[in-house]
């Protein structure tokens, strides 16, 4: 034997040992438990994929802890490498465990039930049978009870009958586990080839949008999905219907939209509701929420008017919302066509759908726009919008305020009802000139969905026999005397009763009449 073979063999034997370890049922169970434990932090820490704002909040609240949590992927638990490591190990362990079991099961299905043990009285279940039973009749009884049966003639003139039942248990078990793998694979497929985008759709023709990534406020694109092959469709919101109980609990949300597919203009009407998505080919449109977009007009010192439709973000539950309107192109001198220095304008404040007669005015009396009002603070200076830094459209850039680049300008009237003007300290004016509804939409395509559902159904179909069917074997030996023995191969409380029932049925089969045998 050469000297180099020894270390190589020991490496393979170590690997083989690890593989056996990894693919044992106990390891799979431990990994499954790890997966469950690993999922916990994601439910307790804010997650980026659910709410990026909450993550920022966490950073603000725990400035020293947050970076450490972040480095451990604490805000992206379900896309973290360590979470992936757990489920990939589990995946491998399952494959390694299942393939040999599938092989064994197929072999068992094709094999005859094993022969009776020589000393049947040692079996957990045993009873005597009357002598002279006919093997064929006994086998028929067992077959009628849906056992797989093998009859063997013995050299000592005895006949043994082996019967086995409950293969569906293992079939179900394997189906369950393989479907679990299929489910994981289908989820991965959907993540690779799917995409989704979120979009605020303001009512009216000018709010219309057509599907392309730039049109989304936020989006996620699977690694194997190309931005250029999003399905071409267009959407427009006509109006939004909402209804509430006196308590403020919503009872109805309907977004009346129009859509057009394959690049056509949006003309086909559809009532988009929660639980009632619009299914287009290649994408589905879901209604996630709604809100109001005040129309704000600003008249600058040159008398130029500019109007913007600014979607405001509602607080959860009520429709009292907060938002901002920015006019970066305000105060451009019409003669020189250059902007006055530091005279960009921004407003930030609240929208109240039904302002009460008495303070606090921010406490809306209804989520419906019965008496809408805007409470604004005006800012002047450099809004920071040209810096190219991405920034929330629902608030002004706080950095510009704290650095002094944006300064508060006093306003005559702080609260504007619909169509009211207010004059700023510098003589310019702002108007609450209109109100639009908007719907928050999610557009999503997950090509793995159908496979995930199919796998889930198979998981359930496998689970039932895996849990409810029991494997058991019985043997009959017919010689000078008869015996019946039984063995439950899985936990089976009712086996005693079944065994007794079988015993009675077998004992009741007609016996060979000795004289008849003699006469033949």
């Amino acid at each position, binding site marked *: 034997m050469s000297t180099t073979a020894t270390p190589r063999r020991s490496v393979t034997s170590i690997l083989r040992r690890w593989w056996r370890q990894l693919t044992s*049922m106990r390891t799979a169970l431990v990994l499954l*438990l790890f997966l469950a434990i690993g999922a916990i932090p994601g*439910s307790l820490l804010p997650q980026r994929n*659910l709410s990026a704002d909450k993550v920022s909040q966490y950073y603000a609240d725990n400035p020293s802890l947050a970076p450490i949590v972040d480095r451990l992927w604490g805000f992206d638990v379900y896309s973290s490498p360590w979470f992936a490591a757990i489920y990939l190990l589990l995946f491998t362990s399952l494959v390694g465990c299942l393939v040999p079991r599938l092989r064994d099961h197929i072999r068992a299905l094709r094999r005859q039930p094993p022969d009776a043990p020589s000393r049947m009285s040692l079996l957990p279940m045993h009873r005597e049978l009357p002598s002279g039973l006919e093997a064929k009749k006994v086998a028929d009884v067992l077959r009628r009870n849906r056992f797989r049966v093998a009859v063997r003639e013995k050299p000592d003139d005895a006949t043994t009958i082996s019967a086995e039942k409950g293969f569906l248990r293992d079939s179900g078990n394997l189906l369950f586990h393989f479907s679990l793998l299929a489910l994981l694979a289908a989820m991965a497929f959907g993540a690779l080839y799917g995409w989704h985008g979120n979009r605020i759709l303001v009512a009216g023709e000018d709010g219309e949008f057509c599907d392309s990534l730039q049109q989304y406020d936020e989006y996620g694109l699977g690694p194997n999905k190309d931005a250029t092959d999003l399905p071409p469709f267009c959407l427009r919101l006509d109006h939004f219907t909402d209804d509430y109980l006196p308590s403020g609990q*919503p009872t109805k*949300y309907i977004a009346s939209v129009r859509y057009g597919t394959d690049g056509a203009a949006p003309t086909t009407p559809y009532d988009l509701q929660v*639980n009632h*998505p619009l299914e287009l080919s290649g994408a589905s449109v879901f209604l*996630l929420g709604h809100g109001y977009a005040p129309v704000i007009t600003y008249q600058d010192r040159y008398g130029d008017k500019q109007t913007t439709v600014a979607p405001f973000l509602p607080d959860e539950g009520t429709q009292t919302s907060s938002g901002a309107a920015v006019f970066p192109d305000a105060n451009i001198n019409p003669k020189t066509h250059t902007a006055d220095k530091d005279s960009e304008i921004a407003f930030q404040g609240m929208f109240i759908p039904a302002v009460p007669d008495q303070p606090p005015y921010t406490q809306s009396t209804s989520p419906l726009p019965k008496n809408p009002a805007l409470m604004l603070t005006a800012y002047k200076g450099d809004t920071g919008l040209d810096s190219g830094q991405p920034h929330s459209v629902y608030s002004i850039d706080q950095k510009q305020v704290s650095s002094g680049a944006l300064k508060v300008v006093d306003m005559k009237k702080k609260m504007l009802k619909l169509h009211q003007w207010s004059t700023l300290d510098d003589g310019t004016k702002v108007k609450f000139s209109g109100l639009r509804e908007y719907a928050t939409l999610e557009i999503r395509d997950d090509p793995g969905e159908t496979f995930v559902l199919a796998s889930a159904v198979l998981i359930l179909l496998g689970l039932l026999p895996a849990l*409810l069917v029991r494997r058991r074997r019985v043997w009959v030996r017919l010689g000078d005397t008869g015996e019946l023995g039984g063995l439950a191969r899985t936990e089976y409380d009712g086996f005693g009763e079944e065994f007794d029932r079988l015993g009675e049925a077998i004992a009741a089969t007609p016996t060979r009449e000795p004289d008849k045998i003699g006469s033949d």
Partner: protein
Amino acid sequence: MGTNGLAELSNATFVAAIVLYAVAMFGYAIEYAFSRRASMAAESEVEHRELVTVGAGGDLPADDAPEPDDAPANNSGITPAQALAAGKVGLVAMIAAAVVHAATLALRAGAVGRWPWGNMFEFIVALCLVCVVVWTVVVARGLVARRLGLFTMLAVVLLLGCATRVYTQATPLVPALNSYWIAIHVLAAIIATGLFLTGFVTAVLHLIRRNYHRVTERGGTLRFPFTIAPRLPEESRLETLTWRLHVLAFPIWTFAVIAGAIWAREAWSRYWGWDPKEVWAFIAWVVYAAYLHSRATGAGGRRFAPWIAILGWGVILFNLFGVNLFVHSMHSYAGV
């Protein structure tokens, strides 16, 4: 009667159900403590070990031995016959309670014109009813003695008591819940949770009985809760019952989660988004899967099995109370 009247009547029947369950618990408690059958189960156990005389096996389910109904077996003044009567009263009270309990849900459904399980309060009320019905079936099939209803009643009364802390008025559904999936997903979750609750009760009893064996074998002194153990059924009987309840509950739970995922695709656009409620439903699924595997991994796994079942119930409770009340979840229909 107006819908408001129905809602009020529903509240009245809810209170009546709790009171009746408490009465049933009291009746079962008397039977548990003083009935002849219970003490025979206990004594035969002792005999079994001390004299090794078989014949009165401790696991006689129906304990069909004749009841000598004179002379109190102890100095409490309660005769075995009276204890037996108390048990019967308990049974009647329990069944009356279940009827009233079902009426609570039916009246609520009538008051709001929808399925009566749209919030956390209603969910708990419904799952407790499932637990009681399951328990009644278990007793009717002779799998355990009636007197053990004491423990189920205790669990149900405690949980219904918790439900009063999250009481929610009968109101129509928010748009997100307005779907036929509420009948499928939530009903499945209710049935599975009710079964898990029953299984949790028997798992605890199994543990008590098992540890009692261990304590007495060591010759140690018995302390609560093991002092109640001599009147419990055989360890194997409790183990099997716990197992069967979980075997039944697990596929239903699996179905409830799958149905939830299908609904989530309709309502929230994705079938699975690692929302805290989904995460904890998954954790519960894994824990119960581990329980079901525990018996297949040999004696060691079997020793842990009841603990895993108890952990599973802990996860279910956390998902119900913890996630609904303290964690921010999209799935927050608790209504409190």
